[in-house]
């Protein structure tokens, strides 16, 4: 049972463009939503995270948008660079449940 649904499965963006990855969840108890970046042969690394008390969080070129009523959140990568080419995972967890529930991942390719 996939608790977090992620789309698209893969994404190709030109250098300088905007990459957008979307996630949706059902469990209203979730209150922490991180995004992880994973390069081949490496473990996932935390990129940015948000809690539902805010609708947007920005760190450099990376922004999370959060829509509590729709139970959706998304990652926007501005001015995408070839070095951003990686697999991105959204995740969700609750204060009482600790386990991170991951989406299936989005493979991003940024072309020069």
């Amino acid at each position, binding site marked *: 049972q996939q608790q*977090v649904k*992620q789309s698209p499965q893969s994404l190709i963006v030109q250098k300088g463009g905007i990459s957008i990855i979307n996630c949706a969840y059902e469990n209203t108890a979730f209150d*922490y939503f*991180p995004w*992880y970046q994973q390069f081949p*042969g*490496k*473990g*996932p*690394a*935390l990129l940015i*995270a948000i809690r539902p008390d805010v609708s947007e969080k920005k760190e450099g070129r990376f922004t999370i948008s959060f829509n509590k009523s729709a139970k959706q959140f998304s990652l926007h990568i501005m001015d995408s660079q070839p070095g951003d080419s990686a697999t991105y*995972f959204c*995740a969700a967890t609750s*204060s009482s449940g*600790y*386990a*991170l529930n*991951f*989406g*299936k*991942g989005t493979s991003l390719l940024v072309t020069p």
Partner: protein
Amino acid sequence: EAGVAQSPRYKIIEKRQSVAFWCNPISGHATLYWYQQILGQGPKLLIQFQNNGVVDDSQLPKDRFSAERLKGVDSTLKIQPAKLEDSAVYLCASSWTVQETQYFGPGTRLLVL
């Protein structure tokens, strides 16, 4: 600071054999996690330790998988006997405590033939 260390990095075994993975978390991190990442999917939690006690092992196939964390530091994950569907990357992660950022190791890639 040193990251999460895992060994071996790769392992190939035949079905019904046993295998063990080792994890050394970031120094001082009380919480340790083992995840299974099947190709094309996100990591799935197998077991979570707080110090050397188990917090959550609800998704651990206990008939074949076991894990321990002696002295609240290093941890081992064992599979016995292995099945073809166990082929995956096994990731170890640690955090200062629950709800804190999880830091992942590079993983152990297991292939069961």
